[in-house]
C-alpha cells in the first residue's frame, strides 16, 4: 500500500464531503461532521471511497471515532503510513 500525502487525503475527503452536500466553505480540519450535515450513510460511502482510493478498510468502529474532518484525514494518513 502506497503512502499518500496529507494533501492528497484531504482533497479526496473534502471532495467527497462536498459531493455529499456539505458546503465547501465550511470544510476545514476542525469542522465537525455533524455540523456539515454528514450522517452515518455518508460515512459509509466515505469509507467505501477511502478503501477504493487508498486501500484502507475502515471498520464501523473506526468510523464511529471520527468526529471532525481532521480526524478522518489523520486516520487515513496513519493507516496508509503504517501499512
Amino acid at each position, binding site marked *: 500500500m502506497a503512502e499518500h500525502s496529507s494533501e492528497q487525503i484531504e482533497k479526496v475527503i473534502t471532495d467527497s464531503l462536498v459531493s455529499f452536500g456539505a458546503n465547501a466553505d465550511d470544510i476545514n480540519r476542525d469542522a465537525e461532521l455533524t455540523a456539515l450535515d454528514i450522517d452515518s450513510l455518508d460515512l459509509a460511502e466515505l469509507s*467505501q471511497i477511502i478503501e477504493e482510493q487508498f486501500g484502507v478498510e475502515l471498520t464501523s468502529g473506526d468510523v464511529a471515532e471520527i468526529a471532525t474532518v481532521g480526524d478522518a484525514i489523520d486516520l487515513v494518513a496513519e493507516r496508509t503510513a503504517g501499512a
Partner: protein
Amino acid sequence: MNDVVITGVGAVTPLGIGATTLHERWAAGICGIEDGEGRCREFVATEHLSVKDARRADRFTQFALVASIEALADAGWGDALPYDTGRIGSIIGTGIGGIGTIELNDRAMFDNGPKSVSPLAVPLMMGNAAAAAVSMRTGCGVRRSAPSRHAPRAPTQSGQPSARSATATRWPWSPAAPRRP
C-alpha cells in the same frame, strides 16, 4: 365504496415539469417520446432538491418528491398539513422502483465485486422508496404504500403515450384525465 376527490395535482413527465406544463403541451399535441424513450429531459434534480436530497433518491423518487410537493401546494397544503399526520397516507405506485440504481449497482457488483455496491443501493432502489421519501419530506404520513406492477404500457401507434400510460406517470394520484389549468 367511498368517493374520492382530487384536490391537487403535480407532474414530472417527458412533456415537462408541472401539471400545467403537461396539460398545455399534451393539448398542443407535443410528444414527449424521443427515439422510443421518455426521458424527462427538462428535469434536473438539484434545481428542485438539495444536493443531499437528490443523492438520497433514485430518479423515480426525485420525480415523486417534486410532483408531490407541487400537488400538495396545489391542494393548499404547501405550508401546513390540515390534518393529523396519522390520518394522511402516501400511496405511490411504481413499475419497478429505482431501476437506475439497480442497473448501476448490478454493473458495479459484476465488474468489481460486492464491496463496490453503494451503501445507498437498497434505500434508493426499493419499490417503496418514493412513498417513504415523500412521507418523510412532507409529513404525509404514517401510512405508506407502494403498489407495484411490472407491465409497462406501450405507446400508441402515433407515438403519443396512451391515456393510461400517460396518467401512470402523473404523481402522486394519477387523475384519469388532464386537469385544465
